[in-house]
């Protein structure tokens, strides 16, 4: 085999080194970091972001994005909790939660594919709609309350249980990541997604059913956001209409850190996983060190920008050293 470092591989190497670097720094600065328990904890914290980001990565590679995932997460969580308080079997509640996510995804798909609304606008709209519906539904169920807690069956938190020392959500995470790596690298569907993101018109003229693929992607992202919603509800043991505010940006940060291009055509699932882990490890490590949330925001922002800058400069597309010198010395 010839040794040729492709652009994607290179970018993953960079983000992977950043992840390792962060781990090393935290290992030395906190005794609690490098323990199996804590690492599992990190995984559990990034579960929802990773699960949603799996679909989101494919969507972004194809050249679209979905801002409604945070609202969907809240809505499906609330509906799941609401139904559970009415004595409906838990399994049905959970499935309904995921299904509701799929419905919003379907709405996004209709708006974007059939009515040709720009993805940003369409999903911005459904983000507000789903968040609003989450509040309305919660108020209805709780007669004016702000969260669905009362009357939940005790086993509602089943998704936080451990199987063999591994939390159930992490099992979900691993399964979904594996499925999506398979879709991305091995299937015709995955290949078409890159083709659409690379050049939609060429893809269409080559016989790719662009509308169908885009449609499916939006529904898939909706379903995954719904799944994240029930995991979230089960974990916090309630349906909270204001949960997952800013969730869409956590997902976007993970995907971008992972090297998926905002303009489509490039990206990978492994990259996204690394991206999400960087965010997770950073948050976890700073928590262990007792750094306040506000500083953590700043740190996250810095890491994002540094990672992207490193990537563009090392690839030789960003600022050159001479430009930098000129900028500094006027």
């Amino acid at each position, binding site marked *: 085999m*010839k040794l040729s470092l492709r652009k994607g591989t290179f970018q993953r190497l960079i983000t992977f080194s950043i992840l390792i670097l962060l781990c090393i720094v935290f290992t030395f600065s906190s005794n609690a970091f490098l323990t199996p328990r804590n690492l599992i904890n990190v995984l559990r914290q990034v579960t929802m972001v990773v699960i949603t980001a799996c679909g989101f990565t494919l969507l972004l590679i194809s050249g679209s994005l979905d801002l409604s995932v945070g609202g969907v997460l809240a809505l499906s969580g609330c509906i799941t909790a609401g139904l559970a308080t009415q004595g409906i079997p838990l399994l049905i509640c959970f499935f309904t939660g995921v299904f509701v996510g799929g419905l919003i995804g379907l709405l996004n798909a209709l708006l974007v594919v059939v009515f040709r609304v720009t993805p940003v606008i369409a999903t911005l709209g459904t983000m507000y709609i789903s968040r609003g519906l989450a509040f309305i539904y919660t108020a209805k169920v709780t007669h004016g309350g702000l969260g669905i807690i009362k009357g939940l069956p005790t086993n509602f938190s089943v998704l936080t249980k451990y199987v063999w020392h591994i939390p159930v959500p992490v099992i979900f995470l691993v399964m979904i990541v594996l499925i999506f790596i398979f879709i991305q690298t091995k299937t015709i569907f995955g290949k078409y997604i*890159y083709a659409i993101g690379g050049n939609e*018109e060429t893809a269409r003229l*080559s016989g790719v059913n662009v509308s169908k693929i885009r449609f499916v992607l939006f529904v898939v992202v909706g379903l995954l956001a719904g799944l994240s919603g029930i995991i979230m509800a089960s974990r916090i043991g309630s349906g909270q209409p204001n949960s997952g505010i800013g969730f869409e940006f956590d997902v976007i940060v993970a995907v971008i850190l992972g090297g998926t291009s905002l303009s489509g055509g490039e990206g990978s699932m492994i990259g996204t996983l690394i991206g999400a882990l960087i965010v997770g490890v950073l948050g976890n490590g700073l928590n262990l060190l007792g750094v306040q949330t506000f500083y953590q925001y700043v740190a996250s922002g810095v890491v994002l920008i540094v990672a992207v800058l490193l990537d563009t400069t090392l690839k030789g597309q960003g600022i050159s050293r001479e430009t930098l010198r000129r900028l500094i010395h006027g």
Partner: protein
Amino acid sequence: MGYVVEFLHVTKTFPGVQALSDVTFGVLRGTVHCLVGENGAGKSTLIKILSGAYKMDSGEIMFEGKPVKIDSPHESQKHKINLIYQEQNLISQLTVRENITLGTESTKLGLIGKNEESRTTLESLNKLSLNVDVNGVVADLSVAEKQMVSIAKALHRDSKLIVMDEATSSLTVNEQYKLFEVIESLKNHGVTVIYISHNLDEVFQIGDSITVLRDGKHIGTFKINDVTKEEVIQMMVGRKLTDTYTRKPERETQCVLSLRNVTKKNQLHAVNFDLCAGEIVGVYGLVGSGRTELARVLFGADGFDDGEIILDGRSIMPKSPRRALSRGIALIPEDRRTHGIIGLLNVRSNISLSSSKAISSFGVVINKKDRQLAHRYVKELGIKTPSIEQQVQFLSGGNQQKVVISKVLSTNPKVLLMDEPTRGIDVGAKSEIFRIMRELSDTGVAIIMFSSELPEVLKMSDRILVMHDGAIVKELDPSTATQDQVLRYAIGENKERDDETKS
């Protein structure tokens, strides 16, 4: 008369490709200096280095006798070097005026002086006798008009050196003629032109000197009168070209595709013709004749209002490219870069893009079949690429076109539509593409070639259909027809219909 530009030992390597090695030659002031070579010879790379789009690995560029360092397009414009690329560098959402004056806006108190700009823009357009709306959006222009606008853009700037990279590839005969006049007058004003073209007739018509590149090496620089066209071709390809083509003897064939009164409002008027298996039909028409529209309708990219398309005896309604492909109608589009390839994807993925069924089972790609398919076509069509994993954007134009052809062939089409199949492709690749077309037709594939290059239509077609104003106005036999004759029908002379009866 000294050199305006001198290239000294210019060397550039891309991953897996030696694009330029030790290229040294000079361009005399006030001359038209032609740069020729096959695809991948390094012409475009050299020009991109001159314009600051690429950095050379080693070597030097002297501009007006002084060594210069050009590390950005902005820098090259400071030296009054302007480029007209093969790919048009226009912003389609802006107007003609805004495009032409981009970066050189005339301002009053920081505001754009629209009237002043409109006046100067119009001047530039008039020089080219280009009749487009100054305030119209570029997206609405035809390919040829866009190309003329990008030429006007370069003229609008104060230039010492203008580089034209395949500037005439989509121009009509008249427009070309206008352009040559402009080049002549530029020359008289002391402006130097570096002219890159695959069309050696043009080169010998307007060039003063000529530089031949091959495989990134400088083969030679000559005064145009010191070499013959045949010598230049030999230097370009490094071998003798055999270009013998014998037209197919008449034989009984069955009709594959028939069009009956196919009509599309304002674009196609009652188009009728039959296409037989193994036949190459050339459709010739000027820009706006309905040539491209016809191709798009046949391929299902656009719908039609009235009439019937019959494939293998069954009436079909190609609603989408996907359906057209599944029925055996394939298209090699005119605009390779935006409709043919996916630059970010590798050669392998581009080739198998239309034939997913053949390389997968239950939606899962079988890597072995995928690679086999790619290797097969890379070998059969002679695609020059370091590996099948190379991104297509890094291949030369001719090799990109071969990738597009591979993609289309892998669907085993019955009817192959080729829209300007040799646009921007050098002589070597051109004759290979003709050979491929011939071989395909021998296996029974029916080919419709839409082309605006008369010599190639006359040479390759078994029949010629001439289009004008959305209708087929004449069928000609290429063994007896002359270029003149075809052109006369195409511009609407010799018309056998009354113009007034049409809407």
